[in-house]
């Protein structure tokens, strides 16, 4: 097996004095979909923030494409191709769709392909093209999530991490966004998925990690994790 594109080793971090992660290790192979599942408060979002550097890692190591990026700030990781679409969308509400997409393409590497990527985003989400000049804050929840995904794609990710894609969306829209993710996967994009909708997440994923109380409780190929009865009852509520 080739070296994973993203490797997280014994990550510990938290908020203020409160430690939340107690040594999380994940391996993300290129071109695959890796999912992190777990109950509310298990530390999924914290793992993504620690990986990005939005939360400072207290201990552990993060390697991206063979380079040690543990202590780089979030913006520098994004510029190297590790991109997070955060929980709660976090759009620039007073900016238009186009401006939000421009901000996604801020880094020098993404700026070169900006117009091509914009067309790519518009072909995935034609609705965004219709509303290019509308302020993001006036969008519905579903449109906002489309814009959040589109903005993340504008950054030309090598690894795209998505936190709670389906939060607050209708089942239909969730389906549509997962079809979009499937398209991206087929195009060869590496994806890390954190998702409440465990059924959909496991169906799309190649490999799954189960987080509990800030530790990796179990891991394995997605179809195996989906059938393990102990995980189903204890952590997935299935």
């Amino acid at each position: 097996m080739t070296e994973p594109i993203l490797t997280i080793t014994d990550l510990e971090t938290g908020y203020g004095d409160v430690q939340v992660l107690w040594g999380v290790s994940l391996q993300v192979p290129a071109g695959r979909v890796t999912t992190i599942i777990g109950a509310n408060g298990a530390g999924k979002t914290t793992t993504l923030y620690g990986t990005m550097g939005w939360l400072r890692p207290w201990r552990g190591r993060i390697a991206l494409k063979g380079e040690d990026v543990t202590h780089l700030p979030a913006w520098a990781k994004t510029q190297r191709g590790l991109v997070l679409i955060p929980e709660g969308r976090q759009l620039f509400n007073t900016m238009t769709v186009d401006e939000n997409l421009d901000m996604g393409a801020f880094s020098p590497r993404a700026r070169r392909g900006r117009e091509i990527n914009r067309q790519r985003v518009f072909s995935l989400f034609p609705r965004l093209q219709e509303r290019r000049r509308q302020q993001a804050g006036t969008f519905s929840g579903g449109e906002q999530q489309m814009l959040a995904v589109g903005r993340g794609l504008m950054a030309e990710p090598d690894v795209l991490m998505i936190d709670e894609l389906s939060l607050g969306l209708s089942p239909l829209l969730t389906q549509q966004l997962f079809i979009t993710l499937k398209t991206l996967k087929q195009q060869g994009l590496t994806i890390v998925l954190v998702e409440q909708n465990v059924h959909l997440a496991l169906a799309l994923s190649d490999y799954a990690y189960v987080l509990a109380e800030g530790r990796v409780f179990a891991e394995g190929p997605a179809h195996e994790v989906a059938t393990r009865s102990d995980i189903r009852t204890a952590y997935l509520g299935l």
Partner: protein
Amino acid sequence: MIVSRSQHNTNNKLVFRPDGEDHPSESEHEPERRFMLGLFASMLDGVLVGAVYGLAASGLTLIWGVMDVINLTHGAMVTMGMFGVYLLFTETGLNPYAALVPVAALGFVAGVVVYWTAVHRVVGRPPLMSLLTTFAVNLMVIGTGTILWSTSPYNVDVNLPGFSLGDYTFTGNHLLAALAALIIAGGLSLFLGRTRLGKAIRAVAGNRMAAELMGIPSSQVLARAFGIGIALAALAGALIATLFPFTVLSGGSYELKSFVVTVLGGLGNPTGALAGGILLGLMEGGLTPFITVSWIPVIEFALFVAVLIAFPHGLFARRPRR
């Protein structure tokens, strides 16, 4: 015509003289007509000076809006702009309007330095912290300025020809200062709306985490935004120095005016600041013929409090849509 500017009254408003007795041939209505003309001229002058107030306030409100820091070095930086143009003019003979360029550049650099030394670590912390650190810088700058230049008045001795309206003479200085303020404010608006750094500043102001996640180095962007805010304060100071005599302590009163303007124009809204400044200038111009100038700050602050109570986000605040 070269007049020593310190001969004017304290606020250096052009003085209104209803000297009807000197003109025995005037008709009955003449004093009234002259009074109205004088009032109009005074208000027009207020608009011109108000544009400069607006420019000063745009620096304060930019920093406030982008990083939630109330920059108490503002007045000191206005003073630095005054002395900057004074020194460039007297020491190197540079035209005061050409001197705006180096003053802006030096203001920007000073702002970036102040950001990294006194502001960076307190952004996002309780407001008292940034109030204290910026106040400390303010005291150091004003203290150093007092050692160098004492607190006696200085003036930049330029007088450009202007035009007259009744007893009022509008100097070219007033016209040019207002024009410069408008151009700079327009430039700021274009910069924030169109350029890469301008958009990055708006992005960091809107959502710092999202900006970082999109690859925008938010601390560096904040440092530059702070630099621009200080450059605007210094530019306003430089323009004021071409209008009125000043001392090391003059910046303070413009800082206070900037707060009033900011509240009139909307917190964190640099374009509204210009409108707020013009409104304040108009009010000052309308009041000076009737009252002693010492009353003006009293009235301004009564207005400040009243506006804050009635419109907590400012008169021209852009209501968040939705």
